[in-house]
Structures are given as structure tokens and as C-alpha cells.
């Protein structure tokens, strides 16, 4: 009986001229990965800028960054996704994966800015003193000394952010994005069969997140200059 269900859901071509389920899930997985990777990249870049702004001595640089983080963290990501899709991109024709990437990138930036801020604060202030004592401008010291050390310290937290984001992108079906979750749901509706597609989707997410955690642990050990304390 299970063999027949798997055959129907994953291996045979689906009704309405759709390809077999495994093909659909693979396509969906591709979208999920593209959206997650690009969004986290956008999040790290924007989040770092926000973090540096939030630590500025100038109030007019500090408060917009702070307001942004508060707004994003205080509203559901699904609402933000809808706002980006139906308001920001209302009159612009854009692929759903791009809309989703931007929405999740903007969302992630707020959380990453908190992480980066904590990372910058974790770097010994003596490092900045030494850089400044050599006549290095603050931005140069930040780029060469402070941020590389901050990123090493926050690598686990950033990896965790990626894992969270990977799972959160499962809502892009709401705006018509064809990600892993959405594909599983299409298979479910085509076959009237819930177990195989949904458990397959869950298993794929699980493999991704666990694999990612293992990868990050290896990467962490690779950065040789790290303090041993």
C-alpha cells in the first residue's frame, strides 16, 4: 500500500500534465535554496550596514537603523512578504522568487543587525584602540580588524539565522512562489494523498538544516586565527 502511494505521489506523472512528484519537489527545492541563500546574503550585507549605523555616534544615523529593526522584528514575516509583493511590487512585474528574496532579505537584515552588533561588541576594545593609535581611520579599522573578528565570533549565530530563514521561506506559496513546500502541497492536492508529499517535504527540510549545521561547524574550525580561549 505504501509502495503504491509513493509510486503515485513521487514517481508517476501527476494529473493535468504535471511531471512526476520527485521532479516537482526538486524544482521547489531549487527555489527554496535560491531564495534562502540570496536572502541571507542580502541580510548579512544590509544587516552589517545597519549594525554599524546603530553603533554610530551620530543620532540621525542611529535612530533610523533602530526604527527599521524594531519595525521588522515587531511584525510577522508573512505580513512583510505581502507588503513587498502587493504594495512595493504592485505595479512592477517581477518573478516571485525575486520578490520573496527581497522580502526575506529585508526581514533577515533586521535580525542580522542585532547579531552583528553583538559580534562587534564582543571584540576587545583594545583592538580598536590599537588600530586608531596607528592612524587608521575608523572605517578602515572596522573593515580590517573589527568586522573579521566579529564575524568569526558570530558565525554560529549567522548559521542559525540561515537555518531559520530556510524554514521561514516555506510561506512563499502564499504569494504564488513555487518553493519546496508549495510543490509538496500541489502534489497533495493532485493526489488527495497527504502523507507522502508532506513527510517528504519535512524530511528534505530536515536534511538541509542538519547538513547546514554540520557544515558550519567544520567552517568554524577552519578559521585558524581564532582565539583559543
Amino acid at each position, binding site marked *: 500500500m505504501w509502495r503504491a502511494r509513493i509510486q503515485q505521489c513521487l514517481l508517476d506523472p501527476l494529473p493535468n500534465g504535471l511531471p512526476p512528484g520527485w521532479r516537482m519537489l526538486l524544482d521547489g527545492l531549487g527555489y527554496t535554496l535560491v531564495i534562502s541563500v540570496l536572502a541571507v546574503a542580502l541580510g548579512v550585507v544590509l544587516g552589517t550596514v545597519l549594525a554599524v549605523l546603530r553603533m554610530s555616534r551620530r543620532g540621525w544615523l542611529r535612530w533610523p537603523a533602530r526604527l527599521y529593526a524594531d519595525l521588522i522584528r515587531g511584525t510577522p514575516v508573512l505580513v512583510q512578504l505581502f507588503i513587498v509583493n502587493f504594495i512595493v511590487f504592485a505595479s512592477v512585474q517581477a518573478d516571485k522568487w525575486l520578490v520573496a528574496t527581497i522580502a526575506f532579505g529585508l526581514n533577515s537584515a533586521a535580525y542580522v543587525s542585532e547579531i552583528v552588533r553583538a559580534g562587534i561588541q564582543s571584540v576587545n576594545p583594545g583592538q580598536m584602540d*590599537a*588600530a586608531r593609535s596607528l592612524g*587608521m581611520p575608523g572605517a578602515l579599522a572596522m573593515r*580590517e*580588524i573589527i568586522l573579521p573578528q566579529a564575524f568569526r565570533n558570530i558565525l554560529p549565530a549567522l548559521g542559525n539565522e540561515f537555518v531559520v530563514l530556510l524554514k521561514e521561506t516555506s510561506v512563499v506559496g502564499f504569494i504564488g512562489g513555487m518553493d519546496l513546500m508549495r510543490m509538496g502541497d500541489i502534489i497533495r492536492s493532485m493526489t488527495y494523498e497527504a502523507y507522502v508529499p508532506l513527510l517528504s517535504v519535512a524530511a528534505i527540510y530536515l536534511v538541509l538544516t542538519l547538513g547546514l549545521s554540520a557544515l558550519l561547524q567544520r567552517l568554524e574550525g577552519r578559521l585558524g*586565527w581564532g582565539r583559543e580561549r
Partner: protein
Amino acid sequence: MSLALHASVPAGPGPMVKIVDLHVKFGRHEVLKGIHLEVAPREVLSIVGPSGSGKSTLLHCVNRLQTAHRGHIWIEGVDILAPGVDVNRLRRKVGMVFQHFNLFENKTVLDNVILAPVKLGLLPRAAAVARGLDLLRQLGLAAKAQAWPHNLSGGQKQRVAIARALAMDPDLMLFDEPTSALDPEMVKDVLDAMKDLARGGMTMMVVTHEMGFAREVSNRMVFLDEGLIVEDAPPEWFFNRPQNPRTKAFLEKIL
């Protein structure tokens, strides 16, 4: 701005550092209460005093890592507290060695030494590497050029820090308790490096608890107590005939 002015300009050597009525407050607590001090070119000045007396604060004002509340500091004739002064330009000529070394943890020893000269465009990379290796060799660290700071002993770290400061070709060197964080057997290497520097004619301001070093190497000593300089004398006078009762009390405690 003429920070490049050297002590040997025809107008006659002015002081390397001139400090007038320097005040620093931390909140409502006044740490420096009106410091007056001149340091001549090639002079080695030791600054001693009980902890909390403001020694480190004074030193940090000289390269503006600490903001002064009131007063004036001239370095090679330039008023460094004046508005609009290019503080990064000033700092290029004022090297600093810290109590806790503060080596850049994400850079190798050699990269620590050449980073600022290269990134600030003062030397082409190849020239900076050659000079960096030369400095490391002089300080007995030639074998450590490619090592990471966390693999060095404290004494080695501090000598790298000295090399890093010297790579900027400074006119003045500030030492903030350079041996206080070292194991006793490491102290000598660092002090020897500083002696070499002093013999080479470097102008130095040294906050220290090493009375032996102060006596042997410095030309002049000041005793700081509660934010004021209360004794200012050559070492032999300072140790043998201190004038101020607080200096006497301090010396009795530590010698």
C-alpha cells in the same frame, strides 16, 4: 600642518611634546587636574605613580585616544587639541604600546606590522614587508613572522607590538605599562628592546612600575599623584632626594 617637522629644524629644537594645564574628567570625577609637562626630543621620560593617579589617562591624551576636557597639547609645535586637527595624521607619528599588547588577532605577526603602513598608503607592500621583517629581526622575532598572535608568549607579543608601532616610523613612542601584563621571565626581553630604542634616540614617554628600568634608562622622571605632577626630576634625584612627601612615601612602599 607640519607634523613631519623634525627636531633638527633650523629654528632650534622646540619640545617634542608640550602639555599645558591639561584637565580630564570622567563624569564628575576629575582624573587630571592641570598637568604641565614638556618632553624634549630624544628624551626618555618615565611616568610613575600609584594606580588611579592618571598616568595612563595622561598618556592616552597625547595621541588623543582619550579626550581632554581642558588644556593644550602641542606635538612638534602642532596644537593637537585644536578643532579641525587631522588626528589620524597626528597618530601616524606617535606610536603606542599597550599594557595588553592589543595585537590584531586576525592577522599574522608580519601583517600586524605592515597593515597600517600599507593600508594608509605610506609604503608599497614589498617595501613594507622588507621593513617589517627587518624590524622583527631586530627584535628577535624573525622566526615568528608568519605566526598568529595567539601562539606567541606575552613577551613576544609585546615585542611585535613595538615592531608594529615602529613600522610607522614614529617621532614619539608612548608606552603604557608595557611590562605589567608579562610573566617575570618575559620582562627583560621587552625592557631590552626599549633600551635599544632609547639608545637609538627615540623620544619616549613610559608609564611604568619598573623602577629599575626607569632609573637606568630614563633621563627624567615625573611622579603623578591624584591628577597632578608632584615631582619632576632626573632619576638619581628622584630616587635619592625626592622633594615631595608623597613621592617619599611612594618610594618607601615600592623599593
